[in-house]
Structure formats: structure tokens, C-alpha cells
């Protein structure tokens, strides 16, 4: 069983080399790769109108029931009550299985490098309240954020399951997957997801060695990344076959209680 715990619905960029991930495209991606399921958040929701984007994910999950699952996204914590209401509605009424939060640049897109001061970090009190709602609803939170941000949020809401997207391998986190592992070691409700541009040899093995394979989930970040490359990080890692099975699907299935 392979479940892609980190995919996206929508359009990443104006550049023609990026595919547009419609629901049909995501389904064909599952067929191409032989994956069982994926969990997607909306790029429109991440960068623009979260309600409109989340509804698009709902539509995709209905169209491909059981194959495409959804994260409800909130753009920033500043929407507070509206965001909490969105999470509640999307999970209880529309069956979304997790929440996506994002340490986002205040102005996007901007030329590289992005100065730190322009980021809205997830580590702030209003976000804790949104994460508390996710914990109450017993759904995980996929957080595109630095290890430090994830640590603080996970400590502030110890009942929440925080999946650190990209395990530190982001621009905002300066690619510090070692810090991601350190942080997850110190806080048991943090899980790491593998998708990223980074293919540093040994990072999956190191995470398994320090945390155990149960704390890691596979993701691809499609339509951004080559999925074969993302898959091989796990498949080719020098870890037990059982650990690979856990990472590739069994862990996220357990976290989402998919068998129940």
C-alpha cells in the first residue's frame, strides 16, 4: 500500500513546465505510479482564497472517492474564527482528513532569497487555536514550516499530530533536515514527511535511526516534483523493508485511521 501524504490540487506556477493538477490529473498520477491514495491540499487555498480552494478539494474527493483525500487549508491564522469554522465544517461536513497550515511569505511570489521578516510563521497563538480544533476533531496537521515552528506548535497543542512537511527541507527552514530530526526526537507528536527537492543521501536512514520508521510518512508534493525521484528516496534507502512499508503507507493510514 502506498499513500502519498502530501499532494496538491491546482496550479503551482505560470511556467509551462509545471502541470496543472486537476482532480483527473491526480487520479491519473495515482494510476501511473500505482499508488492507492493521496491526500491533497489546494494551492489556491494555500496562496489565495482558502474556502474556494478547499471546496475544490472537496469536489475532487467526491469525484475520486477513497482515492483522493483532502486537507483543509487555512492561509494564515489571522482568519482565526473564520479559520476555525472552516476546519470544523470541512472535516465534519465534507470529510476532510487533515488540516494544512503554511508559514507563508507575506508577499508572494517574490524574488529569491526571501527575507525572514516577510514570513508569517505558524508559531503564533491564534494558530494554536486552529490546531486545537484539529486535535479536537482528531485529524493531523500538515505544517509547511520550520522545525522550530513545528516544535512550538506541537508543544503548545500536545494532543495534536503535527506532520512537518518536507522535514526541514524547505527554503524557510534552510534545508535543515537534521534540525527536523532533532526536533522530532524531542517532541513525540511530530511526524516527518519526506517530500522535498532535497535528495541528500542518508537523510531517510538518519530519520529512521533516530526516530523510528513509525514517525515518517511519504509524500511527493506533486504536481511540483518528479514522483519517481520522491519514491526512490524511500525505496532505495538502506532501511528494512518493513520500515519502507510503514513510511510508504501504513503510517499515514494509521494516523488517519483509514481502516476504521
Amino acid at each position, binding site marked *: 500500500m502506498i499513500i502519498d501524504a502530501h499532494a496538491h490540487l491546482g496550479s503551482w*506556477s505560470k*511556467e509551462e*513546465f*509545471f*502541470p496543472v493538477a486537476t482532480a483527473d490529473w491526480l487520479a491519473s498520477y495515482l494510476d501511473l505510479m500505482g499508488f492507492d491514495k493521496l491526500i491533497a491540499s489546494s494551492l489556491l487555498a494555500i496562496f489565495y482564497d482558502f474556502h474556494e480552494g478547499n471546496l475544490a478539494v472537496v469536489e475532487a474527493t467526491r469525484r475520486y472517492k477513497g482515492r483522493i483525500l483532502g486537507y483543509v487549508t487555512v492561509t494564515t491564522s489571522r482568519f482565526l474564527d473564520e479559520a476555525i469554522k472552516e476546519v470544523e465544517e470541512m472535516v465534519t461536513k465534507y470529510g476532510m482528513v487533515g488540516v494544512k497550515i503554511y508559514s507563508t511569505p507575506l508577499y508572494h511570489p517574490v524574488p*529569491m532569497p526571501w527575507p525572514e521578516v516577510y514570513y508569517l510563521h505558524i508559531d503564533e497563538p491564534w494558530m494554536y487555536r486552529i490546531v486545537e480544533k484539529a486535535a479536537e476533531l482528531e485529524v493531523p496537521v500538515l505544517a509547511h514550516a520550520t522545525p522550530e515552528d513545528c516544535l512550538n506548535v506541537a508543544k503548545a497543542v500536545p494532543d495534536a499530530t503535527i506532520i512537518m512537511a518536507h522535514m526541514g*527541507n*524547505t*527554503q524557510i*527552514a*534552510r*534545508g*535543515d533536515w*537534521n534540525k527536523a530530526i532533532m526536533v522530532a526526537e524531542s517532541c513525540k507528536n511530530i511526524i516527518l514527511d519526506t517530500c522535498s*527537492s*532535497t*535528495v*541528500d*543521501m*542518508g537523510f531517510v536512514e*538518519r530519520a529512521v535511526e533516530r526516530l523510528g520508521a513509525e514517525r515518517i510518512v511519504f509524500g511527493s508534493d*506533486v*504536481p*511540483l*516534483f*518528479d*514522483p*519517481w*525521484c520522491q*519514491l*526512490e*528516496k524511500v*525505496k*532505495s*534507502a538502506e532501511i528494512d523493508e518493513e520500515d519502507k512499508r510503514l513510511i510508504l503507507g501504513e503510517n499515514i493510514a494509521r494516523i488517519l485511521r483509514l481502516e476504521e
Partner: protein
Amino acid sequence: MIDAYAYIGFWPYWPIKVRKTADLIKLMDKWSIDKAVVSSTRSIFTPNVEDGNQEVYEAVKEFPDRLIGCAVVDLGNEESALRQIDRALESGMRGIRLYPLYHGYSLRKVSPRVFNKLIESSLPVIVPYRIIMNWGLPRLQPEEIEFLLKSLSDIDVVICAGNYRELAPTLEFLRKNDNVYFETSCLQVWGGVEYLAKTVGADRILLGIGVPLQYPACGITKVQHADISDKERELILSGNAKRIFKV
């Protein structure tokens, strides 16, 4: 298969399994990588590039059928750059790699004498955007590479370690300059390899993996699964590298 962008040497930021050249060869054997184009990380991280280049000379002497040596040249100081290029030629190196960010100079400030020497050497010049695909490492700006290309229109230039944010400017470089090539070690874009093959031609693309710093399977799989012809795949996996590095 030829990994057009590989390394020997220590990695200072986190422990890696492969630290000796013999272990690199074993890793290459495991993944059926016939040859690797290598420079030494010592040349990047320590003040005297020649210390690392010496390691490369010795590694190539020990494994002449497996390793293709690239000297790292610091173009920031004119006289020493000229000497380093001479040494690279005398030692049988097949290419010259540049890491201006780590050596504290701008490609826009390199002296014309040095560029002329590079052209005279006929060695391909390898210019990476970054060491490996890790967001913690600095990235060379495309504008610097653009300047370099204007100065080196008569020799092969291989642009390395570019990812999705560099793809648009890199495509422009490839379109405008027939002497420019691109290796795939850091390209993580969906369909990136076939997009490049269709847009600029498979004869302009080289397989890059980044051994031993990056997962070999990741570098190989994106070319193996690319929607391209077998002939295009062969060019990318080794044919272009053989031509450029005169293997």
C-alpha cells in the same frame, strides 16, 4: 551511465557514509554508474583549491576507468587562476569547475586574461548553481552565469545543480547558446527531463546524480522514467558526457 556532477572528499555539514574514493567506487558499482565526473569538496571548503585538485589527480590515477577529473579553479585572483588552469591541463583534467560564491569573487569581475586562458585550454567549464540540492546552501545567481556565458562562447559550458527556480533562466541560456549544456542532479520538477529534451534537445542534457552526496536512485530514476526515446535516453545517460569530457 556517467554521473556528470559528482564529488570526492569529506562533507562538512553532516555525516555521510562514503568518505573514501574506494567507497565511492563501490557505491557506483552498486548503482551501475560506470563513470563519475568528480571534483573534491576540499577545493570548495578550504582556502587552497589545489589541495583538493591534488586529491582528484590521485583519485583519477587510482581509478582511471571510473573517474573523470575536474579541477576546481578559483578565478578570483588572475595569476593563481592562470597557474591553476595550467596545472589542470598538465594533470590531464577533463574539465574545470567554478564555485565563485565559496571563493569570494564575482564572475563579472574575472579578468579577460583568465577567460582567454580558459578558452585556449578547450576544457569544458562546469558552473554549478549550488553544490547539491539543499536549500541551506547558497545559490549562484543566474545573472552571474549569463555573464560567464557571454565570455566563454567558444568552449563547452555545463550548467549544473539547477532546480525549478533556475529552470526558466537556464532554458534561456540553452536556447541562446549552442555551447551550453545542463545536468540533471538537482532538477526535481515533474517531467523536467522530458521537458528539457523536447525544448532544447536531448543532446544538451547530461545525467547528473551528485554521488556520494545525493541518492543515486533518485538521480537515475528521473531519466529512466522520462518519456523520451531510447536514443535520447542514451545521450543523456552517457553519450553527451562522453563527447563533452572526451571519454
